[in-house]
């Protein structure tokens, strides 16, 4: 029972490098989300998707792109990483009937 799986769990980047975080869920959920967590700020929504092939901006979308080519996968990309993007990133999927979010274990990204 994997639930929501994020890869990689840790990554160090240099400013200007690009990378992609992968989120996979095996619960057949339509809704998926990417959040970032920073000390004292809780979780802030970056982008979300309400179904395969759809994406939308959240609260803090600048500097990130996403894709949802398959229902079970939601990718978060950083085209040109900046130190301000140092954070812990969480992916979540939502059970539509109950509104409950299921979270991955997080991906810690450091941009030097």
């Amino acid at each position, binding site marked *: 029972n994997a639930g*929501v799986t994020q890869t990689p769990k840790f990554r160090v980047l240099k400013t200007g490098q690009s990378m992609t975080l992968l989120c996979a869920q095996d619960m057949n959920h339509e*809704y998926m989300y990417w*959040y970032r967590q920073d000390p*004292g*700020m*809780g*979780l*802030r*929504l970056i982008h*979300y998707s*309400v179904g395969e092939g759809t994406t*939308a901006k*959240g*609260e803090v979308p600048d500097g990130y792109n996403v894709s949802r080519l398959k229902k079970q996968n939601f990718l978060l990309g950083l085209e040109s990483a900046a130190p301000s993007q140092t954070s812990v990133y*969480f992916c*979540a999927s*939502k059970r*539509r009937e*109950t*509104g*409950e*979010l299921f*979270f*991955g*274990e*997080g991906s810690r990204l450091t941009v030097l």
Partner: protein
Amino acid sequence: AQSVTQPDIHITVSEGASLELRCNYSYGATPYLFWYVQSPGQGLQLLLKYFSGDTLVQGIKGFEAEFKRSQSSFNLRKPSVHWSDAAEYFCAVGTRPNDMRFGAGTRLTVKP
């Protein structure tokens, strides 16, 4: 503006003592209300939720929360805290499935 406030950044309680974590929100309509818990290095797990009906809701691990419309609050309580309850707790509110906002979190320390 829509907001979620958790006034207490850090709370310390003795094992066996009662606990109350505060959450206040500012929304135009009655939102969906959630409490999540995050153990170190882990993702968030749902403790309980309120959509409508009885304003006192029961959750997992012996937690409960009460929705008070007049005070725009959704405080989390537990009668007797266990050492394993040490974690960070997040209140989340939303009026639509994709409008969920998280508070900054309250870190709970449990003294033996």
